[in-house]
């Protein structure tokens, strides 16, 4: 199964949705798509707008390949699911996002070998057929950030204690 997700962005992402629809029409493999707020709807995929978070996580775990836009939520979830990842950044010149920051994250994904970045949408079919290997040892440096934030919050709690 190929899981495609375009996030919660209010702009449409027809480039990816149309291409993925073509790929779905040509293959026997099941394609499930989260299509978000856009008006473009695929015809050859099973699709939905939004689903609860835990259902989405399950879908990613079951997928053979995850194809997503380069949004932080999607990439984070896909990496934690440890499935082969293909990122298609939304680009400003196609009016898919308000700026080009998704290119940055997509490049970072490629540089760190987390997955593959697709800039030319015609490369997507090949990438789905021969996906990059899943990045098995993914462990983000979350705990020091949470520890630091907790300490800062604790500090404010302390200040409140002083004033009361």
């Amino acid at each position, binding site marked *: 199964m190929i899981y495609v997700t375009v996030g919660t962005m209010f702009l449409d992402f027809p480039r990816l949705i149309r291409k993925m629809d073509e790929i779905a029409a040509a293959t026997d493999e099941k394609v499930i798509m989260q299509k978000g707020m856009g008006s473009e709807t695929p015809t050859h995929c099973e699709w939905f707008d939004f689903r609860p978070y835990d259902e989405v996580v399950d879908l990613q775990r079951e997928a053979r390949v995850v194809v997503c836009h380069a949004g*932080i939520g999607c990439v984070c979830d896909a990496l934690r699911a440890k499935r082969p990842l293909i990122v298609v950044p939304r680009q400003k010149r196609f009016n898919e996002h308000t700026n080009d920051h998704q290119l940055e994250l997509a490049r*970072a994904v490629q540089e760190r070998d987390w997955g593959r970045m697709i800039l030319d949408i015609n490369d997507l079919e090949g990438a789905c057929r021969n996906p990059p290997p899943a990045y098995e040892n993914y462990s983000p440096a979350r705990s020091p950030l949470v520890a630091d934030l907790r300490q800062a919050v604790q500090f404010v709690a302390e200040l409140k204690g002083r004033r009361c």
Partner: protein
Amino acid sequence: MIPWGAVQSPVYSNERCNAWSIDWNTMRESTGIECRPLTICLACSHGGHLTEMLQLLDAIEGHTCFYFCYDASTTRSLSDAYLVPNMARNPVEFVRNLGRLYTVFRLRKPDLVISTGAEIALPVLVIAMIFGAPMFYVECGAQVVSPSFTGRIMYWMANRFYVQWPELAKRYGPRAFYAGSLIDETMPETAPQQIQEHLLR
């Protein structure tokens, strides 16, 4: 910047960021002051910013928190949330958000604001300054090498400014620091305790 509202406290000098250098563990032992549970306002937009916020919730365990978010299917399931329409780039909406936030802040009196972005942090910043609540900002993990618009403002205004990529900390300057990340695997160079001194520079 010194936490707003803490400036008058005799313990802290007026030097910028100096409040953070105080070892509050030692302070608690010597003064017997206890931490009070806080009311925390969590401001973020729906989507990835919300995903990040949910991953940071461990840091505020034991405190009361409420959300200030855009209205979307992902945010409607949050338990204690104030939702506003997503018309971020509309200046009229910005002013209306100021009004809504004023009401929310008067009602809930948050002691602290934490935001993971995006531009919803800006009206919250204005109201937080009026109410004297300190603000922490965690730059979105999607900004890898270039600062975001909100980030550029929050870099100067937030009491604590985190970035999630080591490359980006260098781009911003000394007030931004990398203490770990929800996405990148690079471990921070300094332990949490040392980061407080980090801010003094």
